[in-house]
């Protein structure tokens, strides 16, 4: 179960990353954030941001056109 869910399907760069950043800001340490999107570049860009923030990447699932990313703050 995710604590915060973000739906950025049909949004393109940089909106998915912007929404992810907002979610991370409001999440508590340990919270799980689930992001659903359809923009292929964002599927790769979000893990890059997760790494920069030192967060835990739990899963990248789906295809480049329909993906779900789960991260833990």
């Amino acid at each position: 179960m995710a604590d915060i869910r973000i739906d950025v399907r049909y949004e393109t760069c940089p909106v998915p990353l912007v929404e992810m950043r907002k979610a991370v800001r409001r999440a508590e340490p340990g919270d799980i954030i689930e992001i659903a999107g359809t923009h292929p570049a964002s599927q790769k860009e979000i893990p890059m941001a997760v790494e920069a923030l030192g967060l835990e990447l739990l899963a990248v699932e789906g295809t480049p056109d329909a993906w779900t990313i789960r991260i833990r703050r």
Partner: protein
Amino acid sequence: MNQDSIYLDNAAATRMDERVIEAMLPYMTEKYAVATSQFGYSLGLASKEALDGARAILAGRLGAEPEEFVFTSGSAESSNMAIKGVGMALGEKKGRHIISTAIEDFPVLHSARSLERQGFTVDHVRLDEHGRVDLEHLQELIRPDTVLVTIQAANQEIGTLQDLDAIGAICRERDVLLHSDATYSFGRVPLDVVQTPVDLVSVSAHLLHGPKGIGGLYIRKGTPLIKWMDGGFQEFNLRGGVENIADAVGFAKAVELITPKETQRLQEMRDRLMAILLEIPQSRVNGHPEHRLPHNANVSFRYVEGESVLLHLDLRGFAVSTGSACFSRSLEGSHVILGIGGNHERAHGSIRFTFGRYNKPEDVDQVAEALADIVVRLREISPLGKE
């Protein structure tokens, strides 16, 4: 995200200098009275002296007389006051034609647009690829009904400096008033209104490690202008309302603290950053290579979007800026890059770095290292250039 960000957005706002705050504090505590005339009480006289002293320092920095400098709430108000004020003062008497550029900052662009809605015509003078005004075209555009030319001293994004001496000489010869938005250059690039034939100049404190919410307008003696703000008779009867003495004192102190030596230090950091960034393949400088603000670097990287670079730099603790304007969920490319003939990709790909007093030489190395990594990784995943 990072509380210890390396701040490289000093053309947006600057950290206030402690010495400025120290100078302002007494005018919020023990010297809080409204500035009064010679017939008022002593506490008010002290406030009046402080206001006059601040005005003299700021006017002096422009080579102006104190009574030619009016305090405002910032350069946005100053530009509104200048452009609309001249438009309204001369619209009936002389004409309704204004000349400007497409790359002005929003206060100028939108003030001119506001006059357009009231029946004025606004022409934009041609610019070269670096954003400098085509002087011959300016000559051609001036008409008998031209009431004002408004051209910035320095560009807010790409840092290009205009040749105000030449622009002013043309305006003077053709008997047209010249306003210049000097928000981004004031204090860092000398401007003397005795040498340079400019009639109105907008300035602000917030980019000089001074307070937000205070600016000024230089108004050459005899320049026709309507009263901007009805109220009392403050600011030479041009702007009614109780004067903001603490901020005025802070503005003057901030300007006093700016020295050529400090500006030189900022320029050295800027030059080094630009040299390192240009080693990244497919990068280019935006703005004039020589005639530019000493503390501004603006670089575009092909195949990556500036907004993405900004976000990734932020996640790593760096604050920079792009020229894009965000409206809801859509991003408009930089009107400045588009205005100098740049394409959509370049308009979305420019990153602005602006240095201030609190930057250190190591900031250059750290941001350059982070940026090189981000650009390489974003290019690997970018759809741009692969279509």
